[in-house]
């Protein structure tokens, strides 16, 4: 197991370098620069700017510097936001995105998982149909529709929660973004949990357990749950990585100071160090979470062994 983890960790290094290099090339290919705006920059002023930020150096020097920075774990300074280092920006915005993401996922896991298990254990019952109908709605309604609807009811009619902005953790300002973000995952998890559980409930060892006269609850919790939730676990890794590294739409609707907002604007602004920094950070998160999922598999499913 330890060897497996080490080997996987080592393969992440070239993968991150490939991702970062591809991003770097793509940024270079996109027209425009961080300093171009509605007003045309006079060539002399442009020269001053390029000199100041080292953009007039040969490409391999700039590339080398970028890779060097990443190896050192220092992503350099943002070009657009003068004086702010990318590490600082990530360390300020990541906690916001991570808080919203983790809470949303926890909520989704709790309610979605519960609904899925109930639906599976009472297949074709009213509970099954209603929770699956609800899940269908959750999947079909995008968060940029759900968010405003929630704001309309809870912020502008009932005045229960603020319609936007971030007041820190914990605060009432988190409620609507968390619900908005979790809805679709809650629905997915409910469906995944249901189908996973159904499959397991039909398997031989459950039938054996039933034949032995175990109670339904014991079968469900002690025997079926482990295998039934495997699909949910494999879903969790990549999704959680995406959620905690910034969710653009929800952060924009609710004006949250998270990483997603920065990432979108960094792209629009051609803010190279910031784009590279966030891409590298996010890919690390994704690779790490995938690894965690694979490790979790081994614990949940006794049939899986890594060597």
């Amino acid at each position, binding site marked *: 197991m330890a060897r497996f983890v080490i080997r996987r960790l080592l393969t992440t290094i070239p993968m991150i370098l490939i991702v970062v290099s591809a991003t770097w090339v793509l940024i270079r290919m*996109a*027209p*425009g*620069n961080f*300093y*171009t*705006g*509605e*007003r*045309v*920059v*006079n*060539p*002399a*002023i442009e*020269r*001053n*700017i390029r*000199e*100041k*930020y080292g953009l007039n150096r040969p490409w391999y020097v700039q590339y080398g510097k970028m890779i060097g920075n990443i190896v050192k774990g220092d992503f350099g*300074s943002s070009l*657009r*936001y*003068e*004086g*702010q280092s990318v590490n600082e*920006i990530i360390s*300020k*915005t990541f906690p916001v995105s991570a808080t919203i993401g983790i809470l949303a996922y926890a909520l989704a896991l709790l309610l979605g998982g519960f609904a899925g298990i109930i639906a599976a254990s009472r297949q074709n019952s009213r509970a099954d149909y209603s929770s699956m109908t609800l899940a269908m709605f959750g999947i079909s309604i995008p968060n*940029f*529709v759900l968010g*405003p609807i929630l*704001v*309309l009811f809870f*912020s*502008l*009619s009932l*005045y229960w929660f*603020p*319609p*936007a*902005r*971030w007041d820190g953790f914990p605060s009432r300002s988190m409620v609507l973004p968390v619900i908005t973000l979790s809805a679709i995952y809650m629905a997915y998890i409910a469906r995944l949990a249901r189908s996973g559980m159904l499959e397991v409930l039909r398997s031989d060892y459950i039938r054996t357990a039933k034949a032995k006269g175990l109670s339904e609850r014991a079968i469900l919790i002690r025997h079926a749950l482990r295998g039934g939730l495997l699909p949910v676990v494999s879903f969790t890794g990549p999704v959680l990585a995406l959620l905690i590294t910034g969710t*653009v*739409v929800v952060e*924009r*609707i*609710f*004006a*949250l*100071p*998270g990483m997603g*907002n*920065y990432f*979108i*604007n960094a*792209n*629009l602004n*051609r803010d190279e160090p910031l784009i590279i920094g966030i891409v590298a950070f996010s890919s690390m998160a994704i690779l790490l979470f995938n690894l965690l999922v694979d490790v979790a598999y081994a614990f949940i499913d006794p049939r899986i062994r890594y060597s």
Partner: protein
Amino acid sequence: MKSFQTLRLCVIALMGTLSLSGCGVSSADSGFFGKTDPPATNILRYVSGDEPESLDPHISSGQPEGRIYMALYEGLTEYDPKTLAPIPAVAERWESNTELTEFTFYLRKNARWSNGDPITAQDFVYSLRRGLNPATASRTSYMAYAIVNAQGYNEGGVFAKDRTTGQFLMDGHLRKVFPGDDTARAKMPELAGKEIVPIKDEDVGVVAVDDYTVKYSLVNSAPYFVGMMPHQFFKLVPRKAIEQYGDARWTQPGNIITSGPFKLKEWIPYDRIVVERDPMYWDAANVKLDAISFYPMTENPTTMNLYKAGAIDASHNHTVPNSWIDLMETMKDYMDAPEMVNEYYQINTTKPPMNDARVRRAFSMAVDRVALAKYRHAKPLYAFVPEGVFAGYRAVHVATFDVEQSKKLLAEAGYRDAQGNFDPSKFPANEAEVTYNTSDSNRQVAEFLQAQWKQNLGVTIPIKNMEWKTFLATRAALDYKGLARSGWIGDYVDPYSYLSLFYTPRGDNGTGWWDPKYVAMLDDANRTLDPAARYEKLAKAETLLLESQAVLPLTVRSTSWMKKPYVKGMYPNPGTMHAWKFVYIERDPAKWDHGVPDMTPDKN
């Protein structure tokens, strides 16, 4: 990127519809949009637009930063809250020579930095030199190019000196400036055997006559010079903090030293910038707010939701989504003014068929601007300088809506049938695209133009949208065919801020049209001392520009923003720039604003 834009549009459209449907209840009775309870504290909460790039006034160039700088930094003069005309700030008074080429400012003696140090004339000299220093790499340094040797210093230029006589080569009464680039200079025969002297910061035309008098020498007459002083480029920056912490770090909380009515208290990117009243400020006794929270936000429906819920007190310009305006116009807290921004399309005059002035004119005449203005909640614009913003300035309308005349011009230009009538099938419509940068609002205008030309001329001009930075690169390089969307925000309150775009063939001109006669007319106007006569001359130059048809003016937008009735001292001026020291929260409902506040200029 594209899918993100689409998503954004969906969000805006949807939130627009939803919030509108829900807004009737609380606002219908009072006539205001949403809650009108003043905040418990004396702190103004203001949505300021994009996240500021920097708190260094020499670095960023945008309006959102400009508004925050007005709280933190002061310059020689400040914008009048109603008219944007220059009013005294650190300078108590000023005077100029009769040629308007030398301006002397007399500073008040009680002006102080936020650390308590006195503000002196040397601080203004330092600030200008630092802004022009090539190492600062300011994007707005062109603002100061009217000052002697400012451009030469900023561009790394050089003087040339005769080795024997020690005399500099002159251009009139000023030293002649040559490019800093050796290879460019090698081609100049007049420089053979001359000594090259780099232009240094002390060559820039600014001197501290004494501790409280600062004098600027200009290259040409510039009657608009004092009006430029409130611009962010001319704000005071602190030598002490910059030298101690460096260009990149001096603006961080804890390091920063400011000169304005407020000082920085807290800065959380993408969340808030909080400034609090600075007791060191010379006019602190008259600063009414305890603090201002600037919220950087760009989603207009979100801003409007916060406004309705009473979580903010006012917002920046264009925060009311277009589709809401019909309803919001009926609200007593809707603020509006003709904006100091023109919306136009620039025309690439170097490529056929648009290289023919008759064709350009014909296309301009085939657009019904009144209909466009109505659709856009704006005012039609037939000239280049925004109308209704500069009192006393009257532009000539060259191309008004006239379809028959338009067809005649196109027939004259060669697109005619055997009878000599205009024949749309002869016109190479695909060579005259309408290019714009992706946005809902720009698309509306482009589609409107396309529809007008189809309806009025029978020609279908293709429209093409581009991602913002791609669009900018294409437009600047004259790589577009036909027409490209454009707009210009005035840097100072004077028609020259617009007309000077075509002073050079490069830069923001972007049309390929340039006429030395036009330049001569502008120079002549600026040498004219009588303001009315000067405006007349500027208007004549503008007529020449409009006759060239290098631009197709469309509309002057409305500023469209919201302000709670209890926010006083804040006015819908043409730039939506507010001198924050005059703003206050009025707790007595009897004194609240019911509609746009009185805009009669104060006597200063």
